[in-house]
């Protein structure tokens, strides 16, 4: 009874319980009072404490290692969000993906056209996607913070490793946040007040120091049943990418463009070398085995986003790309690529097989298929305009555009949930990071060897890149990264690093220099008035 008792309580519960019945017979006066008492609330129950039954208060959790793993799992679960709004923003704003309006479908208030054309704003249609990315990634940070605070208070054998995992995960979420938004607030505990913003250089330093601090306690490798958890290799891969992009990631973006930070080429080489020389990873002999439903067995994968063929746990990339009649369940017929990107690939390069062009078949049955008008479904490289007047692919046909199917059909999928993992980092990219950094250090010949190592497995007849200059190699590495890493969420970073993100391409004009950073969604600026909008927006 009664944490907060009302003022009128002269008769205590004890008196009620013990004496009421017997005395009442003798004492009519007391009985009279008792008869009155309910009306006056003398015996009122006033306990309003809440004790949830199907959810857990944090102070009752994180007491055993099993509970800690349960908390940890939820921080990993947020990684799946990397393939949702973050992926859409980073890919559709680059030249890898285009999401054209297709008749009555995919207009979606114009948000995809904005991303394609790089005309987003803090409060425009595409800010929904930006807000989704912001919230999902910060959600990962918040989950990690909550788990770190709780783990601090308990003791169990693997505590140092779990803390290191959580810090690595948090650093990875910050890595992605600063990639889109620049100087976001660095927060290391659960907060209820709006935090101050930070500079992008501060976020860079935070990620760097967290990964360096966490790395020693991380395992080299997990047993097969724990595959997907953070390792030394994962921390090094994030660091390698961070250093590769250091001039951008630790730089300052103003309305007039990027003031670069200090280059960290040698650090990028060192981080890459730690992975390569660890002996833990090797290039898969078959390039495609990095993407199949059994890709968790690939020796090349360093930091996977894990998926499973089960409800709410699967990868659904095929749904975004394939025509309605091409797969089961019915896909959405949206994402395609532009001709320039598709045609950049060497026809002999096995990596070109990720594209679907020409007459299509059902990917499950193999049977040729028609479009919804009954015509054979033939994917075209161009995007004919339906209206014939508007410039570019404002509104095109269902069959328009080459599709990307890099993660093949999982025969054991559950509805749209496929079990293919999404490798955010794999060894091939580490080779390419090292090569790019070596070239910047003037070691172009060594760099060329690494690139050709990657190319060796994807050509029936070897087609090594011929020797070139340092400047020439920059084009080589940007192209090779496109060939190797298309649709893996890297293109926007690469284009920005090489100063090509704002250049005009197929359906897009030259854009303003500040657009290498996304605007902070207006709703986030209003939720946290301490945030300064990125310059230019």
């Amino acid at each position, binding site marked *: 009874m009664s944490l907060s008792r009302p003022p009128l309580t002269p008769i205590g519960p004890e008196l009620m319980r013990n004496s009421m019945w017997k005395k009442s017979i003798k004492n009519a006066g007391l*009985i009279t009072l008792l008869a009155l008492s309910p*009306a006056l609330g003398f015996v009122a129950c006033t306990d309003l404490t809440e004790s949830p039954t199907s959810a857990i208060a944090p102070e009752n959790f994180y007491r055993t290692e099993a509970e800690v793993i*349960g908390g940890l799992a939820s921080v990993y679960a947020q990684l799946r969000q990397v393939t949702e709004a973050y992926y859409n923003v980073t890919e559709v704003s680059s030249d890898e993906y285009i999401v054209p309006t297709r008749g009555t479908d995919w*207009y979606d208030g114009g948000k995809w056209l904005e991303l394609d054309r790089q005309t987003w704003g803090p409060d425009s249609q595409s800010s929904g996607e930006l807000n989704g990315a912001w919230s999902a990634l910060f959600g990962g940070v918040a989950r990690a913070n909550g788990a770190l605070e709780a783990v601090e208070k308990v003791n169990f054998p693997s505590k140092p490793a779990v803390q290191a995992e959580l810090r690595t995960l948090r650093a990875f979420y910050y890595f992605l946040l600063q990639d889109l938004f620049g100087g976001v607030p660095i927060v290391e505990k659960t907060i209820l007040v709006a935090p101050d913003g930070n500079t992008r250089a501060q976020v860079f330093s935070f990620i760097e120091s967290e990964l360096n601090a966490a790395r020693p306690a991380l395992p080299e490798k997990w047993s097969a049943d724990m595959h997907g958890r953070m390792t030394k290799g994962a921390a090094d891969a994030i660091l390698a990418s961070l250093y590769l992009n250091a001039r951008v990631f630790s730089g300052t973006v103003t309305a007039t463009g990027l003031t670069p930070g200090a280059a960290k080429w040698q650090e990028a080489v060192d981080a890459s070398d730690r992975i390569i020389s660890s002996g833990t990873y090797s290039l898969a002999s078959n390039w495609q085995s990095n993407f199949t439903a059994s890709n968790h067995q690939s020796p090349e994968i360093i930091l996977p986003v894990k998926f*499973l063929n089960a409800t709410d746990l699967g990868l659904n990339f095929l749904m975004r790309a394939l025509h309605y009649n091409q797969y089961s*369940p019915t896909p959405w017929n949206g994402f395609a690529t532009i001709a320039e990107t598709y045609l950049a690939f060497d026809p002999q390069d096995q990596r070109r097989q990720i594209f679907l062009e020409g007459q299509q078949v059902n990917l499950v049955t193999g049977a040729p298929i*028609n479009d919804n008008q009954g015509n054979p479904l033939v994917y075209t490289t161009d995007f004919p305009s339906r209206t014939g007047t508007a410039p570019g692919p404002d509104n095109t046909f269902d069959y328009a555009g080459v599709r990307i199917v890099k993660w093949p059909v999982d025969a054991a999928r559950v*509805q749209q949930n496929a079990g293919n993992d999404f490798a955010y980092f794999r060894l091939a990219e580490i080779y390419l990071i090292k090569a790019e950094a070596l070239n910047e250090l003037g070691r172009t010949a060594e760099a060329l060897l690494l690139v050709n190592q990657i190319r060796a497995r994807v050509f029936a007849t070897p087609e090594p890149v011929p020797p070139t200059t340092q400047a020439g190699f920059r084009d080589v590495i940007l192209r090779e990264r496109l060939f190797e890493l298309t649709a893996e969420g890297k293109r926007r970073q690469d284009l920005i690093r090489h100063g090509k993100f704002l250049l005009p391409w197929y359906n897009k004009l030259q854009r303003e220099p500040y657009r290498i950073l996304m605007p902070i969604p207006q709703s986030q600026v209003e*939720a946290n008035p301490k945030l300064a909008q990125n310059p230019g927006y």
Partner: protein
Amino acid sequence: MVVVRRLYLLIAGALLWAVVTPVAAQAPSGTVSGRVVDSVSRLPLSDVSVVIEGTRLGTVTREDGSFIIGGVPVGVQTVRARRIGYASPQVSVSVVPNGRVTADFALDRRVAILEEVVTTGYGTQKRLAITGSIATIDADAANVGAIANVDQMIQGRAAGVNITQNSGEPGGGTQIRIRGGTSISASNDPLYVIDGVPINNIPTETAGVGISGNEPPLPRNPMNLLNPADILSISVLKDAAAAIYGTRAANGVIVIETKKGAGGGPSMEYEFSAGKASLNRHLDVLSGPEYRSFITAQVAAGNVGPSVLAGLDTADTDWERAISRDASVINHNLSFAGGSPNTQYRASLNHMNQQGVILSNGFKRYQARLNGSHQAIDGRLRLALNLTGSHIKNDYLPFDNVGGFEGGVFINTLIFNPTLPVTVTDATTGASEFYEIPNQRSLRNPVALAEEIQDFGATTRTLGNISGDLDLFKGLTGRVALGVDRFDSNRGTYFPRSNPVGEEFQGLARQSNRNNTSKTIQTTLTFQPEIGPRHDFSLLGGYEFVESDLAEFAAEARGFVTDVLGFNGLSGGSTIQPLESRTEESRLVGFFSRATYGFMERYFLTGVLRRDGSSRFGEGNKWAVFPAISGSVRLTQTGFVPTGPFSELRLRAGWGKQGNPAIPPYASLLLLAADGGSRSVFGDRAVTGFSPTQNPNPNLKWEETAQTNVALDYGFMNNRFTGSLEYYIKNTRDLLLRVPVAQPAVVSTRLENIGRTRNKGVEFALDAQVMDRPNLNWTAGFVFDVQRNTAVDLGGRSFISTGRVSGEGQSDSRAQRIIPGEPIGTFWGPEFVGVNAAGQQEFNNYTVTRDAQGRELTRTLSGKTTSPDSDDDRIIGNANPNFSFGLRSQANFGSFDFSMLVNSQRGLDVFNNTALVYATKGNATRSKNFLSSALTDNVGITEAQIYSSRWIEDGSFVRLQNITVGYTFGSIRYLGAARQARVFLSGDNLLLMTDYSGYDPEVHTDAGIDAVATRGIDYLHYPRPRTITGGLRVAF
């Protein structure tokens, strides 16, 4: 529960006290009997309260108007008869020992202001003494036609009360707004009080499974448990009058009294009605031949491939006709009542079976109700029991709340190719089966959806309350009431393999249970001393405790080899989905008091003070105090104004604070739960994860509304015309608003107490005794209201987006914004100006400059654009009506009676989302049908559907809600054993006059984002039918 046990002891103690207290010696007594009729129609009046003044003796008249009161002390006694809607005359009789005297009454009809007794919070009050705003509804007059629940009885009969049925679905839910919605994120539903016990008015069955991930339709009406025929009166407490309910009163209170037993000989009544319901409005899509000729032309023009033409079949299916039917509505009511002078009972049985006008759905109710009352110790102890048991069976139809891409029955009715047949004969088996388009699942035969998908719910609900009133001393009465409300429900859903929806899962079966127990304890003490003829004083004090426990469980399996077992064969599924279970509990405690003072029946004053505590709020904010004060002056009686034309003129004013606690339990806490979004994958298996499901807010508290009400009650021409004119202003602050929070946060939004809204309005009511002659009695009522809602402040936010635009190509598109200074329900989008020569839609193109904070500085119109961007978005409509009115009329002409009800809203905007996504020729390129209006709109077949002012329509309407004609047989000659019989014919929703192009402009679709309110969005929903009902009532 400790409290319950104590209460038992207390009741026992109270009884004992009553027994041991000396009672007056038995005196000689006699019996008073008589009959009460309407003074004009001379028809018997039932449910009239007849009392011996100055004693506790009394009863209620039976169906034939007769009454008997025994044990009346000898001598001259004053007998008074009272019934809502009538004057309450008294007669003197001289009672002789063991004798029987007669007291007959012919009651004059009176209206609103002069009604004697009105049920208010925690008791009844004399109408004259009420200083707040209370609308009363005569339940008998409102219970005509095909009425399934109490909500429908209020429509058009109370000023300032807006009732919108969610859809025309049988048993469907209702949105009730009393004086507009004040809240943006929390509930705007009123509190329901049945026979003094507040009801936990939550959905009784679990939410359905959306088709292909779409949202299932809104839940059915929890008030279906109550049979409208059992309702005696409905009072709607709109302002400070509701303040006695403190925290739960901000959205108003609906107080329902059920019919009670009468003393004297038993009476019995049986009523049967049967009706036919049918669609009365149609959406015009292309017929088979029209579709074929359209496709032929488009193929010739090169817009559509030639094979589409080849793919057309030869049928001409009207899919709307194919899914609809003439549906039957059958209702049986049997009631009997009786008792002795000291013990009365009324029992009733009801069965209602309402088919939907769409195939394969409906609603059945089996309900029994028992009211008993007993007076003991010379009438000083009064016990009452009300018990309702109901069993509801719901057969659900698979359709969508907010649509989506592929959709359920209604969407496919519009888009399914009209050249295709409903059924085909299987070439090998010769069996007839539903036609489905081969090798695709996104277009579904709507008839097959309705017939093949199984979705059934069953709810058993028991509502019981018992109360004891004891007169402790003269003028002092104590009361204890206990109420229990328990429901148990099960819902079973099966998507068969044979249907495209189920094919994806190879059959999907789900069973879910939901149950809730709410316990209420109320104790009150009423002190009403006699302090002279000029003063009228009463004091009420009380305590209330409400506890509610909810539990849910659901299991789902997929992958079946056969459809035969339906949802009963979960173990036959190859994949078992993660199980779901959930419980929650909440408590509410209140201490309240009310003092009323009347001077010479001219000046009245009421003060209310309530202190409430709710478990749902933050640790330091669980308790709050709600005061209210109101008063009235009868100007005509006090000589402040010359009587002039007025026979009655009364000024009322009141102010009070009320709360809105309508948020889920535990909303203030940081809680961890294992849900789908926390599960992860390690290796190649799923790992259960626990993560915070909401952001904590230890400061979370009530939403608080302060309401001021000023009113003028009037009567003129000797009160042949009466009514009231009211003005109110409701200022709501500390809104329970779900807003984005500063990141990092475990969830992107949090419930906070920020922002303010304001509602103000004018309500006008007029009741008229138009004619009052022998054999012709005609009354009419008119209610009119104007409401203005404003979102005053959103905690510094410049807007909150809400109102999903739904359909293909509409992801992330929003129709509404809540903007400070504008009403909730403001449409936001580009301004459509026309179609250009190329068939493209054109919109006003604006050039906007903004400051560093993104605030608009200047706006210049610079031509037109075919691809509007965010700078082109503006306010393009307001979903709130300029005004609304209701008109009702009732006439008795000899043995005939006639009544009608009209309601109307003017000047509201409706976003016709249905037209946006289905009035487009582009659908043909997806082999879909479309609304015929697109044939003539000059928009190219290739144009995308763009949300704009083009789709905002004027939703003004006038609806002829009901007309009823009845004939009463008074003569025994034709009726055998029956005393009286009446036959009637009634029509519901007979006529809808509107320019709106969709099914119905009265829409309620919950299209909110993060539970933020939306208004006036029409996504294709279950159309409201027209129903013709005939019936017979016989009294024995």
